[in-house]
């Protein structure tokens, strides 16, 4: 495997000098023919791939205004050039958002503009040849679709949209990425990204029930497929497998139990995540999302709640209603999915559950805003609720909370470095480097405030940080979920006065 160099942790984020080609060797694996075919993509790269790609490009321009506009209006002001964590971490100029866009815009100019036809190279128009396609495959899988660049662009140009379009074009000519497509395949056939079948899910949940019983003495159930339950909880399947993810799972279960609300998982829709979004494919996104709503209808639940997952929340909050709405079969009071943080905080505020903050006195906590929650969705009614709600919940569960430096949190948050379909081992060097800005900001509060708990609300973030912390010499045990804190603090047992 390639050399994996973790940058030094200084607590400062510095904008690097360009190093051309620095991350050119970080390439995703190409999807297997069977995988491609299962998702109705060509098995292998088509012989006439170039014409097909241009054709698809033209089609997408007509289908997505965001794409058409961003091709036309970027003035190359450079405001976004130092905003991408992958650029800051790898120093590779092609990871500057506008340079990433240019990989596509070059082709746009050549095939779709008068400027490109008249001035050619002077206007940087270029043919989509093998080399360029290769660069597409490399650098459009070095973007986590985190939208940080879009936040700063004077015209709101969103590189994530361009990355999605590029991936869609590549898939359509038979040039897909193994990681995302394999997972979409599992999500569409088995119902979750891990490929965990019903019996395994049940066995896992039985085990978790035993664990809770051993540790608390309380019988808390994690039910599956209960018809007529009030709540369908849809959570990333990583919660059924990985650590620290499972600690949040335990947290959710305790919350439902203590609040006395009947709930269930669905073994048919046992995944909140939606990798269809990562590859910019409307149909796959819709198919994966549909499982949730079919399950909700079948189980006759009143409402749907989403567990801790960044892009899943975007898919459920921002896209569900478009993809598979309207949800008139749910309770009129809860016409759309609610984020678990909002749900729990609400119960805390109503006094339906009680948290003992001192249970977390061993921790000084900071919170990482997940990009898809921060810049692509909302929680609750208030604008910016996605920042307020998780923080209020954390503060209700612990005494010591610290904010990381300005410019690295809220809407300006840095991605974990593993989002958007890049959480795959062959990209580990990219992931380590892409995490650098976040790590620097974290390092600063570790040094100044003794932070020792890094609270997250995204399965990918959790997996990514657990994996890369050791490269930076940090303990992976610091990484945890917001509901992990809730789980430790919640007071179980008879309720006073309710």
């Amino acid at each position, binding site marked *: 495997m390639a050399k994996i160099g973790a940058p030094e942790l200084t607590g400062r984020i510095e904008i690097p000098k360009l190093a051309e080609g620095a991350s050119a060797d970080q390439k995703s694996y190409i999807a297997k023919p069977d995988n491609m075919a299962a998702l109705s993509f060509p098995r292998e790269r088509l012989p006439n791939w170039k014409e097909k790609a241009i054709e698809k490009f033209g089609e997408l321009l007509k289908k997505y205004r965001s794409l058409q506009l961003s091709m036309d209006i970027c003035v190359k002001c450079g405001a976004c050039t130092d905003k991408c964590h992958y650029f800051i971490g790898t120093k590779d100029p092609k990871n500057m958002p506008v340079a990433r866009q240019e990989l596509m815009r070059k082709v746009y100019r050549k095939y779709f503009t008068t400027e490109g036809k008249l001035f050619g190279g002077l206007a940087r128009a270029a043919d989509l040849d093998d080399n360029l396609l290769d660069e597409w495959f490399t650098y459009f899988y070095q973007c986590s679709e985190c939208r940080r660049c879009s936040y700063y662009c004077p015209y709101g140009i969103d590189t994530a949209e361009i990355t999605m379009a590029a991936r869609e074009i590549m898939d359509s000519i038979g040039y897909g990425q193994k990681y995302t497509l394999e997972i979409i395949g*599992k999500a569409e056939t088995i119902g979750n990204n891990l490929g965990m079948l019903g019996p395994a899910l049940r066995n896992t949940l039985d085990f978790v029930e035993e664990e809770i019983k051993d540790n608390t003495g309380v019988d808390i159930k994690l039910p599956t497929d209960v018809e007529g339950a009030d709540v369908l909880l849809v959570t990333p399947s990583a919660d059924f*497998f990985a650590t620290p993810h499972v600690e949040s799972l335990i947290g959710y279960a305790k919350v439902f139990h203590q609040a006395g609300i009947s709930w269930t998982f669905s073994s048919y829709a046992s995944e909140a995540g939606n990798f269809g979004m990562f590859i910019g494919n409307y149909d796959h996104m819709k198919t994966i999302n549909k499982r949730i709503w079919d399950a909700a209808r079948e189980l006759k639940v009143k409402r749907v709640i989403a567990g801790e997952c960044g892009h899943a929340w975007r898919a459920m909050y921002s896209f569900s209603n478009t993809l598979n709405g309207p949800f008139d079969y749910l309770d009129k009071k809860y016409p759309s999915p609610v984020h678990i943080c909002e749900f729990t905080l609400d119960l805390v505020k109503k006094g339906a559950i009680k948290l003992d903050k001192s249970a977390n006195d061993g921790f000084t906590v900071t919170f990482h805003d997940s990009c898809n929650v921060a810049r692509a969705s909302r929680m609750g009614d208030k604008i910016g609720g996605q920042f307020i709600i998780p923080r209020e919940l954390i503060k209700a569960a612990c005494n010591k909370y610290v904010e990381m430096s300005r410019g690295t949190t809220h809407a300006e948050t840095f991605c974990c470095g593993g989002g958007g379909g890049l959480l795959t081992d062959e990209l580990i060097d990219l992931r380590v480097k892409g995490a650098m800005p976040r790590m620097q900001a974290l390092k600063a509060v570790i040094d100044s405030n003794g932070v020792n708990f890094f609270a997250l609300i995204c399965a990918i973030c959790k997996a990514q940080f657990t994996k890369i912390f050791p490269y930076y010499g940090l303990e992976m045990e610091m990484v945890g979920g917001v509901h992990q804190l809730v789980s430790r603090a919640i007071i179980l047992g008879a309720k006073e006065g309710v």
Partner: protein
Amino acid sequence: MPTIDFKGKQIEVDEDGYLVNLDDWNEELANYLAEIEEVQMTDAHWEVVNFLRNYYKQYQIAPMIKILVKEIGKVMGPEKGNTKYLYELYPGGPAKQACKIAGLPKPTGCV
């Protein structure tokens, strides 16, 4: 499809070196895979591998890390029933590296 050469036999593996066919696996091959991973197999390592294989046979997936941790704690003593110990055994991660040596496919997802 890449292969590894084991005792004159070509064994199919994926890009990361995970066996493509579960049935290709045997203890000798496991030792060989461990060698490639620079893992020195001890009883404790075998305990993990055997448990993974049995679990996989039953459920077609590797167990949750916590289940593995608990099992190892049961067999090897409670002081070893923690994630840290598993990482000591398999620095490449108990899920990914141990699965590789056990001949299971790589767990992928948001993990």
